[in-house]
């Protein structure tokens, strides 16, 4: 789900979910994919998509599902929202228990309806995170971080974050472009931790855009130091122009 900017992706350990290589342009529909022409009444059952060795639905399985739904797995956040609603606890993996929530979770379009790809596809748009208000969005945003980690690591690689952040936050933040520019100045092995990730959202909601940065108090800032550096970065940049 986290498209890497550079093709040189670093697979962490053996149990790795395959990640799609270069970022595909986001166009959910209209892609001529042969697999999409599968039977519309295909069942949404765990066995079809799960990796038999691992016993989980991994990124591979999700890609298959994405194909059948006719969406781009690397850029459609509704897929992430789906995993969130299913309550995925492990990064990049869905257990059978979690899969079963297709039927039980009221947030999903398959609730109370037949468990088919068709149903899911029909109600796909309802999963759009844009419908969430800020309070509901926060846990989703945190989930985006959690789900895209590698295994038990507590951080995201810089490039992963660079691709994932704009995708997830969409237009809720006026700082996105600047922040991405700022992140690019960091070295390649730079890592973002959970606190920094979540604080970015809180920061975007609390502090106005450059150059005023309304609501920003440099003296008593309790934001993570990364955010402090970001503000300084933008202020420096503006001074030069």
């Amino acid at each position, binding site marked *: 789900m986290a498209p890497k900017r550079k093709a040189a992706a670093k697979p962490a350990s053996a149990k790795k979910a395959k990640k799609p290589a270069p970022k595909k342009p986001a166009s959910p529909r209209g892609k001529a994919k042969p697999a999409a022409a599968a039977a519309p009444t295909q069942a949404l059952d765990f066995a079809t998509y799960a990796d038999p060795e691992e016993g989980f639905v991994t990124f591979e399985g999700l890609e298959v599902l994405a194909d059948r739904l006719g969406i781009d797995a690397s850029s459609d956040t509704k897929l992430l929202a789906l995993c969130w609603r299913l309550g995925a606890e492990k990064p990049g993996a869905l257990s059978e228990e979690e899969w079963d929530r297709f039927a039980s979770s009221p947030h999903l379009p398959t609730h109370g309806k037949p468990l088919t790809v068709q149903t899911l596809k029909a109600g796909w748009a309802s999963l759009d995170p844009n419908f969430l208000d800020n309070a509901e969005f*926060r846990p989703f945003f945190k989930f985006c971080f959690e789900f895209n980690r590698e295994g038990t690591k*507590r951080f995201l690689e810089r490039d992963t974050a660079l691709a994932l952040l704009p995708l997830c936050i969409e237009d809720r933040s006026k700082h996105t472009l600047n922040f991405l520019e700022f992140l690019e100045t960091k070295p390649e092995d730079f890592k973002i*931790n*959970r*606190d920094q990730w*979540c*604080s970015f959202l*809180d920061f975007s909601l*609390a502090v106005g855009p450059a150059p005023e940065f309304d609501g920003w108090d440099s003296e*008593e800032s*309790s*934001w*993570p*130091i990364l955010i402090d550096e970001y503000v300084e970065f933008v202020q420096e940049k503006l001074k030069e122009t």
Partner: protein
Amino acid sequence: MASGRKVVIKPFRAHCQMDKEQAQQMWRVLVSAVAEIYNKNASVLSFEELYRNAYNLVLHKHGDLLYTGIQETVRTRLRSVMEDVIRSPDDQLLSQVCVQWKEHQVTMVMVRDILMYMDRTYVPQSKKMTVYDLGLWAFRETIVRHELVRERLRKLLLANIRSERLGQLIDHNSMRCALNMLTELGGDGSSIYEEDFELFFLEDTCRFYRCESRLFLSEHSCPDYLRKIESRITEEMKRVPNYLHASTRPKLKHIVEHELISAHASTLIGSKKIGFSTLLKESEYKMDDLRRMYALFLQAPATLDMLRTALYEHARTAGRLLIIDQIKEPIGFVRSLLALRTKYKKVVYIAFQRETLAQKKLKEAFDSFLNADIRCASSLVAYIDELMRTGFKGSTESEVEHELDKVIVIFRYLQDKDIFEVFYKQYLAKRLLNRRSTSSEAERQMLAKLKSECGYQYTTKLEGMLTDIRFSRNTMEKYAAHQDRLPPTSEVRSNASGSESDTKESCDMEVTVLTSGYWPPQSIVSCAIPSHAAAAAGDFQSFYLEQHSGRKLTWLTGSGTAELKASFSATAKHELNVSTYQMCILSQFNKLNCRAELSLQEIIDVTKIPHIELKRHLVSLCTPKHRILQKKSKGKGLSNDDSFQVNELFLSKLKRIRVPLVAMREITPHPHQTDHIPAAVQEDRRHLCEATVVRIMKARKQAKHNDLIAEVTRQLNQRFYPQPQSIKKCIESLLEREYLERSSQDPRMYIYLA
């Protein structure tokens, strides 16, 4: 026997009516009496008669007549006086006025006495002025405020004051009289004194002093100026009791202070013509001037702040310059620092009269420059080291006490006490291990003082070091006793010319056992020590471990010294005091023949001494002064394929030679050259900071960001000042490790995760 008949006493009615004619008659009597009074002929009059006349007049309702009559009389009289006064020339005007005033007073008193009944009855009834007041009013309007008198009089008064200021003598009596007159003439709402005189006087004073001060200051130095204004102020204040009214005093004081002191305060402080700053420089000799300056500024309290700030600036600049100048020479630096402090303390005590605010400012100045540069802390440590090694030789206990007190004074200013501790530990370790300390009592005293400043935790490790030394000595005594009980072993002296060594040899060894936690970290790379040393070490180790089972001993071959008896030839026998490594190197030559060479590589292989250290110790044995070994390569350094042999031609006048180690720049820069915080201290601070954050959060369960920072700072302040940014880093690290989390309602609030 009064029965039924009341006795009634009727008032004596004399003339029940007084007619106009009679009244006039009485009045005429009075008029002529008043005229006599004016002519200073009062003695011919009968007071009783006149009083009675007036009394009767008023009684018979002729008060009007009396009142208007007297009014007219007074006025007429004063008018004629006025004619005289106007005509008098300037130099007599003042005395004339005074004379007239005095006469007027006297006559009016007499007239008033005569007309007292009228004053008491008629006047209040008809709401008119009393006789005396009437006289005053008349005098004022007729004479004093006469256009030909008023201004002239005032000008004269002011001119007099002016001449007195310029050094001439004037008649105080007439001045006092005139001013009293003005005071008395006031009332009914207006103050003649203030309007006609005081206002102008103050203005004049203001102008006069403004001019004079400016002129004087431009031509003279500040101390001279201070002396002048001191005398001026005294003079002005004397003027008040001399002839001015007391109410003028505060106003006069204010003006004088303002014009003389406040207006020129900044000049006085900053001027190059021996202003305050310059005075401070030579405070030893200029204490009087400084004291005068403070006393004067004390009278205009607003200027005192400027003075204190100037003191602060001066001290701070001097301190900064001192650092730039002398920090490279730590001992000299500290001495100069102490001298600087004494100097400023004297200024504060004597010139500033021990004022607390000035003391505070001085402390702030020292705080600021001493904490701007870390080398101050290490310099202080170096200074103490010097004292302990050599400075205290032959000092009495009270002298030691005195010196250490001075040291503690500087210590108090330091903010980063943990840096001091690290350096102190290093120096103390060196002193103790090399037995360089003059007196262990002095060491103990120093630690006691540090303990009372910073609490016992600060000095536990240091005290531990001292205790280690003491215990080691005890252990050695026990060991010696233990050795004595053993069967004697053959002792063979090791010598450099290589004779066969016996298998059962040993050597005398003195061991100092260090508790690893207390001492600064030492490198624990061991080398291969020669057999006799190893044997002695082994003996000691088994002895020690018997006494203290469960402990582990590690030999620190990087430290320590050895005494070798060396025979270079039949005649040249010396005792060499060398390091342990050098002993290892040299004993390699024992096994070989006289001329044999050892290559560098061979030495490395056999002794296993780390390369850098080996180079240093080897080079020290090849220096021109102590050429114990000869090396193949020329020059100061060693080449990798160098080889060495014993220098048979070694000569020295001394029997006992101490071989010093050459300094190698790469190894450890001398502590007082670094001007950034040692890594160990930074690490230490990070741990302390995190531990403090966790402790606080555990107690509070949740805390806001600012409160947390404030509390952490407060708790750590005794040891060092934690920058808010570093505290923030610690918090973030703890967030990442899930000791804390941010509250979801308020990102500024942290919650403790159990």
